[in-house]
């Protein structure tokens, strides 16, 4: 009777993922404020301290924060294997990650060794703890399907990204560590964006796009091969990059071949997702679907930009090129998709936990629970979507002409994160309100029963 790919009865308590989701917009606001404070000088190159700091506040403080919270929630459900002690795991990883991101943000902005060393310890422990828990859960999983593979390889990529990041930070902290920064930074970026973020988005999309956006399923061939192709492409790209630098330049062919595999795989993902969305069964306006469209178009844009570099190598010398690519991949692709998912995951979890509490309190059964659209209203979500798109367009402009648009784009990005925080807090307050009503209704019903029986 219970023959299925997902096991929701293994889900951890609401507080486990919610603490990550509520923290993320705060780091987004901090990143925007940092760029606002530093001004156009922050975008002079990709290596300025305020930009390095803001980028890590965004990638670790916002994107990884949400993704780690979502994985702690999802891995138990999709793998059918519960995370041991979810409150402790979530609390510990969240505390280490939050403190580590603050330390890293300060350390990179001020290029301060003590803060960077502090960040290395906190983030190293936090990421290691998270990776250990996920690996333990996935290896105990009674079934391994495409999403479990996607999550497993994404988390492995996070471990590589963190290892490379710690090595790069060690180069700042210890004089004795001499590094070749460029190939290591490329590998750090590649595994972070195309590995950790991209693989997780792809793996999770197989489940959540058909479920929440009411599209047909992804084609079987895409589900079976895409995650494996991306991981293989990333290995080739990374190995080629390192071999070309340390062994012999001709190895660059391997890096190019890996890049072509990644381009084809992510291009396929973006096009297939857009086509599935075009075949939605219900054509009602939906904020998450729109945010995913922005994400897929940005991913295609980044692919075209990378392709342009292969035809016009001189682009690599242009200051704005890495900034444009970074804005498209981080704000345009990863942030849009994650922002969109939050508008489904959070209301769904609130509803799911309320419904289970209601079922556990049969005397309160008459209570009408809110639906997902009442937990985060479309009006507020769409308002935030518009501001997010404006922030993305302005950030693209700022990458090209920092002097005119840096302040404005950072200010609009701040407003976008503030609105996201407002919407998520509204959902959390809704949960608390209805949870209290369930308890009160059950207590009132018990009083009536006691009065009648006595």
């Amino acid at each position, binding site marked *: *009777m219970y*023959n*299925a790919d*997902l*096991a*929701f009865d293994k889900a951890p308590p609401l507080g486990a993922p919610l603490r990550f989701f509520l923290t993320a917009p705060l780091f987004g606001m901090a990143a925007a404020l940092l760029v606002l404070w530093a001004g156009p000088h922050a975008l002079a190159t990709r290596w300025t301290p305020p930009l390095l700091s803001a980028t890590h506040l965004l990638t670790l403080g916002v994107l990884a924060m949400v993704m780690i919270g979502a994985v702690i929630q999802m891995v138990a459900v999709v793998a059918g294997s519960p995370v041991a002690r979810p409150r402790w795991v979530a609390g510990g990883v969240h505390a280490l990650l939050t403190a580590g991101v603050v330390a890293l943000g300060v350390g990179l902005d001020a290029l301060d060794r003590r803060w960077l060393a502090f960040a290395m310890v906190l983030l190293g422990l936090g990421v290691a703890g998270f990776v250990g828990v996920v690996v333990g859960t996935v290896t105990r999983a009674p079934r391994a399907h495409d999403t479990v593979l996607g999550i497993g390889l994404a988390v492995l990529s996070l471990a590589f990204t963190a290892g490379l990041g710690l090595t790069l930070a060690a180069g700042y902290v210890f004089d004795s560590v001499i590094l070749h920064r460029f190939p290591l930074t490329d590998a750090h970026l590649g595994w972070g964006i195309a590995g950790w973020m991209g693989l997780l988005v792809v793996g999770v999309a197989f489940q959540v796009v058909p*479920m929440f956006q009411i599209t047909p399923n992804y084609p079987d061939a895409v589900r079976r091969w895409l995650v494996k192709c991306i991981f293989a492409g990333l290995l080739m790209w990374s190995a080629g990059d390192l071999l070309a630098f340390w062994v012999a330049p001709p190895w660059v062919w391997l890096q190019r071949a890996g890049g072509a595999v990644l381009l084809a795989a992510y291009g396929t993902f973006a096009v297939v997702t857009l086509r599935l969305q075009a075949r939605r069964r*219900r054509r009602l306006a939906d904020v998450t679907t729109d945010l995913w469209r922005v994400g897929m178009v940005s991913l295609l844009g980044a692919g075209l930009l990378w392709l342009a570099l292969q035809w016009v190598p001189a682009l690599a010398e242009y200051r704005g090129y890495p900034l444009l690519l970074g804005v498209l991949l981080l704000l345009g692709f990863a942030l849009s998709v994650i922002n969109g998912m939050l508008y489904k995951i959070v209301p769904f979890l609130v509803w799911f936990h309320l*419904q289970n509490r209601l079922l*556990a309190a049969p005397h309160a059964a008459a209570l009408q629970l809110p639906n997902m659209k009442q937990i985060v209203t479309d009006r507020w979500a769409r308002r935030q979507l518009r501001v997010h798109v404006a922030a993305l367009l302005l950030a693209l402009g700022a990458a090209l002409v920092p002097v005119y648009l840096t302040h404005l784009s950072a200010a609009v990005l701040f407003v976008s994160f503030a609105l996201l925080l407002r919407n998520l807090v509204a959902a959390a307050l809704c949960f608390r309100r209805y949870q209290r009503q369930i308890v009160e209704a059950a207590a009132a019903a018990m009083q009536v029963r006691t009065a009648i029986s006595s």
Partner: protein
Amino acid sequence: MTAQHPQARERVLDVSDLEPCEPLERALEAVRTLQPGEYLRLVHRQEPLLLYPMLEKLGMAWRARHAASVEILIHRRDDAIAGAAVAALAGTED
């Protein structure tokens, strides 16, 4: 009414085009009002896995049938008439 079990009655609820969490809400509303001898034929685009533990808590039993869409036949666990009709349907069409 069904051919093999004339006392049993079927109620049909198609939630295939609804967004989460509406299919679950509608299904829970419907099963709470099942009358003696009545079962619910729930039509969905995918297996509603989240629903099953909830049905269990509500004292329901169910059988799932997979075709182009998924059908879940739900009845009260203590309703012998509806249970027999569901078993016959699931047995003949599985």
